[in-house]
Every structure is written in C-alpha cells, then in structure tokens.
C-alpha cells in the first residue's frame, strides 16, 4: 500500500511542473500571437534537438544553476528566503580567484584551498544576514538584498586594487589561475571539441550531501521541523536561533561554490565579465524543483536549455531572445500556483480514499460523516 501511495505522490509531484510548463506554453504563444510573431517557428526553434556544442553548454550552465538552486533550497527548507546567493557567490568567487591566481600552492592543493576559501567567504557573508536576524530580528529578505549591493561595491572596489590587466585591454581581471590548478573538462559529448566542466562532479556531490544531511541526519530533521513549525520545534527542544544561523551559514557555504565551475573550468580569473545573476536564477529553479535534489536538477537543465536555445531565436526566427524570460517567468509563477492546486487535489483524493475505506469496513459509522 505504501508503494502505491508513493507512486501517487510522485505522479502528483510531476503533475505540477508539467502543468506549469503547459501554462507557460499557452501564455507565451498568446504573447507571440498578439505581437504578430511566428508562433510555430518559435516553438520549432526552441524545441529542435540541440547541436552537440549546445548540449555541452546546456549541461555546463545547468551545473552552475544547480549549485545556486541548492544554496537557495537549504534556506527554503528552513523557511528562510536567502535572496543573497547572488552576492554570496560573487564575493566568494572573487576571494577564491584572488587566492588561486597567486599560485602559492601546487596544483590540486591550490584548488582545494581555494574551494575552502570560497565556502568560508560565502558562509560568512550569509552569516551576517543570519546573525542580524537572530540578534536584531532583521528580516533576511531585506538584509540579503542589501548585502548583495554591498558585495557588488566591495568586489568592484577590491578588484581594481588587485587587477592584473594587460595594457589596452578593457576587461579588469584578477590574476589568471596557473595551468596546473585549472580543472580539466570531460569530453563526454561527441561531435564538439567543447568539454563539460570537471566541476560538474562538485555539483553532484553537493546535491548528494544536501539530500543526506536533510534526510538522514538529526540536524536535517531539526531543520525541516523548524521550517514546518517553529513552535513545534521549540517544544521538541530545538534551539531555533541556532538553527536559523546554521541554515543561513550552510546556504551561504553552498552559494560560495556556485562560481567555482566557471572560475576553474572556463574563465580562470574573476573579472568584470564574470557571469552575474546566477543567484536569482537559483531562486526560480529551487521553486521549480520543489527543493528536491532531483527536481532541482531537472529545473536547472530546463533553465539552461531555454537560455541556450534562445540564441537561435533572433538569428533564425528574428524574435528577441528575451522571449525566453517570459517563458521562464511564467513557469515560476505558474509552478507556485500549480503546486497549490495539485496539493489541494491530492488532499481531496486522500480524503475520498479514506472515506471509501471507512465505508467498506463493516459496522463503520455513516460514510457521509467522513467525506467532509
């Protein structure tokens, strides 16, 4: 019986994102129709099988989004809205890039210590918001947004001080990481010389750690319990303030890793063109993936897929690639609504099932009473 229940739960869980994507499809098509753009061509372009080099780009993009979404999800499980992943990953990537660029340590050791630095810096930056919430009652939503702005200014200020720019270049970069500390990629996709980030393993590792810590440890149980009901958690002896701070720090630690695949697998330095905005994409993907490590993986892939396929829109169809923002935005809105609709539907199904069982039992009370 438990198996059928689980199957139903999985089915219901899948139903919501599928519904959301359908809604996004309808809304986007309507927008296209209203704008007088070629609807069929747009979808043909978006749904064509991507070329090998695009497949690599999609997987690479997804691995970065995945880390970001996991960082956000850690907060979500605790009812904390960490909007600051964006600032946390940038300041962490900057710190790691500065250290790694010096090349003080040999090859892999340099990578390892740089990762550690990224984690610590990300955790510390998020910790400020956690500490403010615990001691002063400042909403983490406000403080993390502020910290994003401060991170931008701080990194920019420091970047120009440690910059290692070549003459005539218009990009300001930290020192390039020595070749021995660059993480090689995997040539997994045939038909393209482009490689998948070596640090996709890091993303997978973080995903597994997230699942284990939340589901298989006392700490994870406490965290989820506090997220569900703070009063109940207090009653069962959980120190809520400590949980808030710890969750925030963990979220920041994961956020610190977001920029690492880019830093060690592609850019090899932190500069003014380092990819921004990953933290905000992470929020959307965590919502879409329902904070589940596997769900988030699919969400990240979908996001990256849309990102990459959008380029062809303006070239082959002549429609602005910003169209993809509409699709992504509608998916996020629709998915939140769809989850609630599906949850209620699931609840009703459950009630009916229980009622049926009760009515089938001999000598049971009137079934009408159970179908509330």
């Amino acid at each position, binding site marked *: 019986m438990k198996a059928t229940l689980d199957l139903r739960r999985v089915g219901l869980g899948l139903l919501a994102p599928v519904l959301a994507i359908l809604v996004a499809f309808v809304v986007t098509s309507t927008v296209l129709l209203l704008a007088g753009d070629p609807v069929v061509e747009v979808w043909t372009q978006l749904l064509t099988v991507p070329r090998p080099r695009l497949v690599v780009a999609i997987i690479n993009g997804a691995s970065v989004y995945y880390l970001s979404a996991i960082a956000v999800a850690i907060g979500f499980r605790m009812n904390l809205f960490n909007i600051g992943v964006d600032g946390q990953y940038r300041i962490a990537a900057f710190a790691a890039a500065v250290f790694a660029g010096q090349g003080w340590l040999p090859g892999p050791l340099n990578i390892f210590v740089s990762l550690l630095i990224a984690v610590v810096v990300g955790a510390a930056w998020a910790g400020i918001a956690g500490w403010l919430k615990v001691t002063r009652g400042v909403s983490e939503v406000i403080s993390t947004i502020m910290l994003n702005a401060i991170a931008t200014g701080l*990194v920019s200020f420091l970047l120009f001080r440690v910059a290692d720019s070549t003459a005539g270049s218009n990009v300001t970069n930290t020192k390039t990481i020595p070749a021995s500390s660059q993480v090689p990629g995997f040539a997994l996709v045939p038909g393209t*010389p482009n490689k998948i980030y070596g640090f996709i393993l890091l993303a997978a590792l973080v995903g597994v750690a997230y699942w284990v810590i939340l589901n298989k440890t006392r700490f994870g149980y406490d965290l989820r319990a506090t997220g569900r009901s703070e009063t109940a958690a207090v009653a069962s002896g959980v120190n809520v303030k400590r949980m808030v701070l710890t969750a925030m720090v963990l979220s920041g630690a994961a956020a610190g890793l977001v920029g690492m695949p880019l830093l060690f697998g592609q850019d090899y330095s932190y500069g*003014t063109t380092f990819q921004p905005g990953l933290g905000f994409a992470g929020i959307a993907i965590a919502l879409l993936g329902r904070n589940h490590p596997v769900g988030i993986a699919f969400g990240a892939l979908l996001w990256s897929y849309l990102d990459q396929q959008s380029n062809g829109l303006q*070239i082959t169809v002549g429609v602005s690639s910003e169209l993809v923002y509409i699709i992504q935005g509608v998916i996020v809105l629709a998915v939140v609504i769809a989850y609630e609709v599906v949850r209620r539907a699931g609840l009703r199904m459950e009630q009916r099932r229980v009622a049926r069982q009760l009515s089938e039992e001999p000598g049971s009370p009137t079934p009408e009473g159970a179908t509330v």
Partner: protein
Amino acid sequence: MRRVMKVTAAMSVAALALAGCGSSTDSSTPGASGTTSAAKVIKVGMAYDVGGRGDQSFNDAAAAGLDKAKAELGADTKEATAVNGEAESAREERLSQLIDAGYVNVIAVGFAYAPAVKKVAAANPDVKFALIDSTDAVGPNIENLTFAENEGSFLVGAAAALKSKTGNVGFIGGVNTDLIKKFEAGYTMGAKTVNPAIKVQVKYLTQPPDFSGFGDPAKGKTAAEGMYQQGADVVYAAAGGSGGGVFTAAKAAGKMAIGVDSDQALTAPADVRDVIITSMIKKVDVGTFDFIKSLTEGKFVAGTKVYDLKVDGVGYSTTGGKIDDIKAKLDDFKQQIIDGKIVVPIKP
C-alpha cells in the same frame, strides 16, 4: 561604371552557367570575382552588446555603420543582441550560429565578446571577424577596432574648461570599467590643461557586474543634479543611455552638458538638445563600415586598427554652434595631440 560592372558580372555568371561544369573557368577568373562585388552579396553578421540596436549610443553607432554597408555595398546582414547576465557560452553560441546561418563575416560589438571571438575565430579560420573595443583576442582572421576615446575626451574636457565660468566641471561615467576610465583620463587632462586650478567632479553610476549604469537615465539625472548643486556648470556624460538624465538635469539647472559616442545634439530628445554644447564622437559606424568595405574589396587586414584623432576616428561635434568661439583653440589642441606634443593618458 557600376552598371557596366553589374552587366559584366551577370554575363560572366551566365557564361559560367552555359559552360556547365565551370570548375576550371572558376579558377581562371580570380580578377573578375574580386571586382564584381555587386553581384556577389557579402554576408555580415553583427553581434551587439547588451542594449543592442536602439540604445542611441554605442550599439546604435555600430548599427549605423551596418545600415550604411547595407545601402551602399548591398550587404546581406543579420543581427543578434546580447542578453544581460548571460553565460560566456551564450556569446560563443551567438557567433557560431551567425556563422552556421551563412554569415561568414562577423562583427562583435564590445569588449565582452573578446573570449568568445578568440575561441570561435580559432575554430572557424575561414570566417573574418571584427572585434570592437578590444585587443584581447587576436588572430589571423580577427581585426581589432579600437578607438582613442581618451583623445576625443581631452578635447571636450578642454571645451568644458573653456566654457565653464565657475571653474568646476563634472564627469559622469556609466559603469566603472577600464574603458570608461579612458574617457575620464582624457577629460580630466583636457580640462586641467586649459585651467590647472579647475575642479573636476567624477562619479560612476554603477560598479560591474552591474552594467545598468549604461542605461538608467534616473541615475544619470540624480548624479548630475548633485554636481550642478556643488558648483559644476558643465557635465560630461560618458554613460550611454543614462546620458539622457544628465541632459534633463542640465536643462532644469540651466547649465551645460556634453554628449558621448554620437552627436547627441542631434539624437537626444528635442527639448534638451540646446544644453548639449558638444559631444565626444566615437566613430564606431566608420569602423564598422570600413571593415565591411575592406571585405568587399578583398583587403581584409588582421590586427589592431586604431581610430584616433589622426585618422579622424574620434572627435567633437559642433552642432548648435555653442562652441564656435573656442573652436580655434580646440583645433589647436587637436593638432598638438596629432603631432604628439600632447600625450593623453588612458588611465586617470
């Protein structure tokens, strides 16, 4: 003359068609294929920076060059625009897709494309690239178009100092990047050369990776208001689309402003045009057009091409006649820079 060429081209094509398999004829007439550009359409793909066509500034200047090539050289063009906050792979993909679609001459607008151009150019040695504002990617099939913004800014800095009555001028940069610092360096030096005691207020609207400073008139307006209140009477807006706000503030304060990239006394909204005494002109349109023209003539040259005062690649505008009285002095400075008597730094 051109018509004769067209006819000749048409006839030679017809001759080839009649000859059936014309592989031998094809190789025997290399001279003809070089001169019959009107018959053989050149395909040019353009990848814009964030903002794209319609930003009234940098990208639009590149677009103007492309439009001119379309009209005068009959180029077949395709355009694609960057999205804010996109991945590095997205830029590579944009260039690759332009090539896949048959646009085998690619113009990448803006230094953000440097790593992408480097990679895609290496993978497509037959494709010719123009990279604007960057020398970070070099190769046998890449032409780097750079501009001496510092020299042009020197002249408008001198103009600001000559026009200022308060001995106090302002500089508003869009985003704090090395590129915009070139503008600041030239402007400050120009102003100080005219009046060593002048006060130059400097303000950047945003810090990277926040590039909104190039497209946020509200930020430009606030910054300019502050400068005017603190005594400045001329403000140079090196801030792309944010410049509109600077002009609005100048109008409200009854002060002067200086435009950037294009002749903004012609492109800005009509009601604020009279506050723009001059604009530092960066002739991205000329660079773009020259690149396409060199391709049609088969004269592509890889490497850096600098558009400075000497080749009239940068300059200042005189629309409105607001600086006619000091034009002689500015032209004197211009000559001194061309002669190398004044060396304008690129860093403030």
